[in-house]
């Protein structure tokens, strides 16, 4: 995955960047399966590798820019990014270790969901239960966001009846 990302950073041909992004999404989906997030992995594979690639290619065809420009001053952003990364890496040392069962993330809301959702909703897939029931408002808002984004794209790209 790291190799794909590096290639993406260096590659200036936009078409190959899009293809690399697709490969990267598939790899990410694989990693997510390894992390037991099957629902998320499924979405990532369908959305990241499928739909966004098609959209990116469509937009690429419209904008026609196949070759990005060479960088003029690559060092300033690089230094900035590395500095941000160093600060974050220092901060990550204070976070709980990987797969620590006593980490705060596992001791608060999650046991309630895992323990009670089957009795309360009758749905064994906890992700579905939480998504649609316990956090119904979130999902409602999210559906509205998707709807709004769709409406925005329609407003931006709708073909006019007459030419300009």
């Amino acid at each position: 995955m790291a190799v794909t990302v590096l290639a993406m950073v260096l590659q200036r041909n936009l078409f190959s960047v899009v293809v690399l992004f697709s490969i990267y999404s598939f790899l990410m989906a694989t990693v997510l399966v390894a992390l037991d997030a099957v629902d998320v992995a499924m979405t990532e594979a369908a959305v990241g590798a499928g739909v966004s690639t098609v959209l990116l290619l469509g937009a690429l065809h419209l904008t026609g820019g196949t070759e990005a420009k060479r960088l003029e001053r690559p060092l300033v952003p690089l230094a900035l990014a590395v500095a941000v990364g160093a600060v974050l890496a220092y901060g990550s040392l204070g976070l709980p270790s990987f797969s620590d069962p006593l980490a705060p993330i596992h001791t608060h809301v999650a046991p309630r969901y895992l323990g009670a959702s089957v009795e309360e909703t009758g749905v064994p897939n906890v992700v579905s239960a939480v998504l649609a029931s316990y956090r119904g408002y979130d999902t409602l808002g999210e559906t509205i966001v998707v709807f709004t984004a769709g409406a925005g794209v329609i407003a931006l790209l709708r073909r006019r009846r007459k030419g300009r």
Partner: protein
Amino acid sequence: MKDDIILRVVAKLLTPFMLLFALYVQFHADFGPGGGFQAGVIAAAAVVFYALVFGLRAGLRLVPEAVAERMLAAGALLYAGVGLAGIALGGNYLDYFVLDADAVHGQHRGIFWVEVGVLFTVSGVMLKLFYMFAGRGGTRDERGGE
């Protein structure tokens, strides 16, 4: 791509199965991975695949643009409607317990309709997005006189 016989045959064979798989993912979400989001994207991807192989016009014949637009709005309304149904039956907004005499069944019903709403919105939006981008490209090609 329209002339490749292998692509045409495979696309024709696969599209119904992809749609079927989307339905499976939708309705099996209680027991396995899946749900409205995934199913919506898969359904949209099936139609997009069909349109890529057979051309945009064939895709538009399969799912006209107006249908995609209506789906987009209908899904969001359905979701909000489930919430209102909860109020109408004496609960709070998005309260599923009141949708059926039995609380667990009510939850089931609520989740089911909410997921259907999500399915409609997501697949509608994805399809519409594809049509918008592809449609623009089409006119440019025609103008360019390919």
